[in-house]
């Protein structure tokens, strides 16, 4: 993606530079050629409709190319490929807390293997932050109270800057870190040696799920007081009030914190609210666990189905 963004950027720069050169040359040439001379009067010209139409429509046409190209890149940036490894990100004043699906926790550092799609599921504990890795050309605001996502695939090992790009208070400029891209073998070694793991995120979530008593109602048969959660993630849910929503990370999040907001059809609003009772990290673990109950279908796991056909999947890449 970095290459793609750069190509578009260069295209924009070249077109803009041509425009600048055109305008500046005309201004300079006219200013020199038609400077005041004794006895020569200015020639009064009303205007010209064909010219006006030309310089309205032509730029519009060029703008449309910019728009379409930019929109295409944006579209693939906003749609992570299926089967991407997931990393949960929590922003807080003033640090990044990251947790891999495998359970490794990091602060202000993200280790990823080269060539793998990484999807970031991000939220904030306090104010708005923005997760920005200039080398990958990705940036996404991180909001309190909901998940936002972005993704990338690093193509070259190295260490890259991670910045907070949305002003977040005193130490905004100190909320920086790095993304370390490693060769797969190296990454495996790091995974093995990374101390802070206490089991995968999903298994932590499962423990919490039991500990908080969720499992007593959300049973894996149809007898529970709450809906069976197996195999539901990523599919539409029919609600009590007749609406249908997609069960995504934000829906799961909301249903844990404020269960009465969108009650599944056929169930009673009896679940207690967990707002203020679970931390962002615990919430992430629960979401990861519930997602793990719905493994992506085998076929979708390896191909990024969202990329335009005939192309390799487009992800932010390091060049």
């Amino acid at each position, binding site marked *: 993606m970095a290459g793609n963004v750069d190509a578009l950027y260069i295209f924009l720069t070249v077109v803009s530079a041509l425009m600048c050169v055109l305008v500046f040359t005309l201004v300079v040439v006219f200013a020199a050629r038609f400077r005041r001379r004794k006895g020569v009067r200015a020639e009064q010209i009303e205007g010209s409709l064909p010219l006006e139409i030309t310089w309205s429509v032509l730029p519009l046409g060029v703008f449309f190319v910019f728009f379409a190209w930019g929109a295409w890149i944006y579209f693939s940036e906003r749609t992570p490929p299926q089967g991407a490894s997931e990393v949960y990100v929590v922003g807080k004043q003033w640090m990044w807390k990251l947790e891999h699906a495998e359970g490794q926790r990091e602060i202000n550092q993200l280790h990823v293997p080269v060539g793998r799609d990484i999807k970031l599921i991000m939220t904030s504990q306090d104010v708005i932050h923005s997760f920005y890795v200039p080398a990958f050309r990705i940036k996404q605001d991180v909001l309190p109270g909901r998940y936002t996502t972005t993704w990338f695939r690093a193509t070259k090992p190295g260490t890259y800057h991670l910045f907070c790009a949305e002003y977040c208070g005193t130490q905004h400029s100190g909320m920086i870190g790095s993304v370390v891209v490693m060769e797969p073998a190296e990454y495996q070694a790091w995974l093995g040696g990374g101390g802070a793991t206490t089991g995968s995120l999903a298994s932590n979530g499962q423990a919490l799920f039991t500990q908080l008593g969720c499992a007593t109602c959300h049973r894996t048969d149809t007898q529970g007081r709450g809906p069976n959660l197996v195999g539901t993630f990523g599919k539409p849910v029919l609600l*009590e*009030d007749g609406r249908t929503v997609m069960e995504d990370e934000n829906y799961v999040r909301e249903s844990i914190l*404020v269960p*009465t*907001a969108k*009650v599944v059809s056929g169930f*009673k*609003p009896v679940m207690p*609210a967990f707002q203020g009772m679970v931390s962002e990290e615990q919430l992430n673990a629960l979401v990861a666990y519930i997602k793990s109950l719905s493994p992506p279908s085998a076929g979708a796991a390896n191909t990024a189905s969202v990329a335009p056909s005939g192309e390799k999947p487009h992800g932010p890449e390091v060049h």
Partner: protein
Amino acid sequence: MDSHAAVEHGPELLHHFSDAEQQRNAASLGMWLFLVTEIMFFGGMFCAYLVYRYWYFGDFGAASQTLDIRLGAFNTAVLIGSSLTVAMSIWAAQTGRRKVLVGLLLATILLGLVFLGVKAVEYHDKFEHHHVPGASFHFEGEVPGHPGLPVNPYHAQMFFSLYFAMTGLHALHMIIGIGLFSYLTYKAWTGYYTPKYYTPIENAGLYWHFVDIVWIYLFPLLYLIDRHR
């Protein structure tokens, strides 16, 4: 606003206008433009209302049902009545009925005060029931049409936040209007307005009608939602 300028300067033509017609047209256009800005001013809040009503549909319905529809309806009637007295006061000014004019202006002020009085009773009621947003906010209830589905207090608080913000801003406009009309009443008493010059009354009338119309929107949005369930 422009009514001020004209009022203080006297009915005679201001120096920079070429004739009375131009002056009147300018004042009236100015007032209309001012009302356009007022629409945008309330527009931001209506926009916020729209968003949250969509998000927290049932909770808003439940919170709305705690409002006293009778007081709201009574106040609506009071305001419509005051619009009538304002319209009539313009007629009185046009036809040069000074005492009628003063009477109608006083009636308008009185109706405005009645409205504010009722509003104060309603606000007081909210305090008693802990429906004022903040630390002591408390709300319990069920979503209309969904027995057993409890209302999320945060969402109900959002309703009351918007309720206070919108009715508060409206009440502020009422207070300004009453101040304006008190001044006009005094000037009318002195015989300042004649069938030839009554632009300030006309413009203050426009303002008052505007404030009424805002209420005509606020009343259904705040009091009447989900009443059928």
